[in-house]
Each structure stands twice: as C-alpha cells, then as structure tokens.
C-alpha cells in the first residue's frame, strides 16, 4: 500500500471478507478500499468468485465474515441510504423487454435517489441509443440492450458503479465508447468496482486497483 493510500481513508472499505459457496472457500481475509477516482478491477479464473464478490459489495449477498464500510459505517446498517450511492450492472440487464428504453430508464431513475438535471434522452444519446427511445426493448439487439443497461448508470447520481462484465456483447467501438464513459465517471470523483475479460484501455490518470482472486 502506498503512503498516499494510508493517510486518506477510503470511501468504501472491505475488511477481511470471506465467501464460501457450496462448502468451497472462494476467498478469505480479503481487504481493500476504494477512493474517489479509483477503479477496483477484479481478475481471476471462471468460478473464482468475482461475481460473488461484486454481489457482496452491493449488499445483495452476505459475506461469510468480514465488514463492509461506506464512509466508516456498516452498509447493512445503512440499508437504502447506502444503496442511493451505488449503481449495479449485473449479468442480467435488469430491463423489462416489454417496456421501451425510455420507460425503463424512468423506472431506474425513480428507484434511485431523486436527482435533478440528468436528462433521460441525453443518457440514451450518450450510450448511442438515440432514436430508439420508443422501440420496445425486446426488439433491440443484445448489444443495444447492454447499452441500455449502461445508460441506467447515468440517470442517478450514484458514486460507486459496480459492474459485472459490462462489455458483454458490445462491439469493439462500443467498448471503447463505454470505457470513455467510465473514465469520465472516475474523473468526476466517482468510483467503480468491475470484472472484465477485456484488457481495459483506461488512460493513465485513472487509478486502478487490481485484485486477482485466483492468485491469492
């Protein structure tokens, strides 16, 4: 750990986490912190517990042991007050196929903390879905549906983005474009925790914290 990292407290801290699935220890005694502008990148083989760790970070799954602290407070005690700071993009997009992209985003915004000034049309434009706002989500391609899921991150002012394989089914240009979006979020003082099989093409200014779950 660098000197800079020790003297300012991280916004989100994990202390000696352990996760057990089907009697198999996926990881134990895992500690790290995420600060504004930092991205945590999880690496590891299939089945090494990357998704489980992200779900633990969201608070959906309980860790076997260990603590999770948001600004020094336990996230399970904070509950919804913690949830307003995070946005989660899982394996599943979480969009309703029978609704239009615009309707889906409106719900995503309503579920989060009410935030002003974030325009839904602009969010769709940013992920390249301009002109598709009234097409049923069912009729969009897999890549476009993934873009819609990413647009969901933009419509609330969540500080921590938790991303599970965000680039699935995106084309190369799409991946580059989304990397710029994530970079923008980090440069504005946001945080991210993500897994990906792609080599991430962030520019140097972005501070990456890498954790490899298979080599511990």
């Amino acid at each position, binding site marked *: 750990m660098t000197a800079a990292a020790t003297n300012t407290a991280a916004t989100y801290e994990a202390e000696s986490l352990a996760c057990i699935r089907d009697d198999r220890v996926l990881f134990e005694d895992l500690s790290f912190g995420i600060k504004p502008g930092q991205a945590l990148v999880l690496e590891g083989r299939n089945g090494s517990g990357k998704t489980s760790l992200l779900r633990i970070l969201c608070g*959906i*799954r309980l860790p076997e042991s260990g603590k999770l602290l948001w600004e020094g407070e336990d996230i399970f005690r904070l509950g919804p007050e913690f*949830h307003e700071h995070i946005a989660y993009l899982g394996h*599943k997009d979480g969009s309703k196929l*029978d609704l239009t992209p615009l309707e889906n985003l409106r719900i995503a915004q309503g579920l989060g903390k009410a935030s002003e000034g974030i325009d839904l049309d602009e969010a769709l434009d940013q992920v390249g879905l301009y002109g598709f706002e009234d097409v049923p989500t069912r009729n969009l391609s897999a890549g476009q549906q993934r873009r819609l899921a990413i647009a969901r991150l933009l419509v609330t002012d969540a500080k921590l983005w938790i991303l599970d394989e965000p680039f699935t089914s995106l084309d190369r240009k799409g991946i580059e474009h989304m990397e710029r979006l994530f970079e923008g979020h980090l440069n504005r003082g946001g945080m991210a925790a993500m897994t990906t099989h792609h080599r991430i093409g962030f520019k140097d200014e972005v501070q990456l914290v890498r954790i490899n779950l298979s080599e511990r």
Partner: protein
Amino acid sequence: MSTLSLTSAFSLLLKRDLVLAYRRRAELVNPMLFFVLVTAMFPLGIGNDAKLIEAVGPGVIWVAALLAALLSLDSMFRSDYDDGSLEQFMLSAHPVSILVLAKILAHWLVTGLPLFIVAPLLAVLLNIPASAIPTLMLTLILGTPVLSLIGSVGVALTVGLRRGGVILSILVLPLYVPVLIFATDAVKTAIVGIPTTAQLSILSAMLVGSLVLAPMATAASLRISLS
C-alpha cells in the same frame, strides 16, 4: 422531499406493473377465466337441485377465487427475478417493503379486482339470493387483497427455486384457510338473514394485519431468495 420521491417511486412502480400487465393481457385473463369456468361448471355437475346449489354456492365461489389467486401468484415476481429487475429493486434507495407493496397492489388490481367484478353474475348462476350478494361482494373486496398479500410472502420465498409451484401451494394454502372459513360463513349467514358484522370484522382485521406485516415479510424473503 424524500417522502415525495418515495410516493413517486411507489406510483411509478405501480404504473409500470399495470403497463406490463396490459402489454401481456393474454396471460392476465387466465386466472379470471379459471374462476368463471370453475364456478360455471359446478351447477352443470350438480344437476337441477336448486337447494343444493344454493347451499354450496358461497363455498364454490370462494374456493374458485382461492385457486385463481394461487394460479396467478407465481407471476408476481417471476419475470422480475428472471430478468434481473428484482436485484435492482433490492438496491433501490427506497425501502423495499414499500416497493413490494406497490407490486402487490398492482397484482391485486390485475387479478383480484376482476374476480370481484364478475362475482355478482356468478352468484346469480349459483342461486345465491340477491339479499346476500352485497355481503359476498364485501367478503371479496376484503378477502382477495389478503390472498395477494399472504401469497406474496410465499412467492418471495420460492421465487429462487426452479420448481417452486408445489411448495408454494403447500406453503400458502393453509394460510388461506381462515379467509375461506370466515368469508363463506359470512355469505351463508347473510343468506339466512342474520347480521354478519362479526365475520366481516375478522376479515377486516386480517386485511389490516396482512397489509402491515406482509410487505415487510416479503421484502425479507426476497432478500433471502436473492442472496
């Protein structure tokens, strides 16, 4: 400010579920069709014994309503679980129990309210005297929300299972029995012409009790199902 955004989240979710139900209306008619068919077949099966039909009428309507509710329960959280929307609800900045209440209300409006609307017709078919029909309607408007509320806890517990249908029935049906007993008893008493305040008060108590407790239990069950 925060209560305002909470009510807007509630109405947003309610509207969403109603829109979704409208866009898949073919599935939506199923429980009501079941309710109508079962009750309509009964007089045909019994034959032209008007006294007997009148005697079993309230029971038939309520048993059919119970089974129709059970049939429709699984759809409450299934598609949200499958496409990941449920995870997003759990991570909402609003209390999950309030969001759950919006979903239960939408479910009742779509599956419970239609039963209430067609019930008078079926009551005539089953030879229930006109004087008892208001009581039947009252039991349905008090009782069917209880079915949705209690059912939501069962669905929340079984939504993560591959084949949760059987377990759901075993889990939920015993809890439906008190509603069935008091509702049918109220209608039978009304047919005889005795006041039904006692039964209706108990049904109201069940409604209030489940309205307060079920959303919290459902939220907790969903958390268990997802983790």
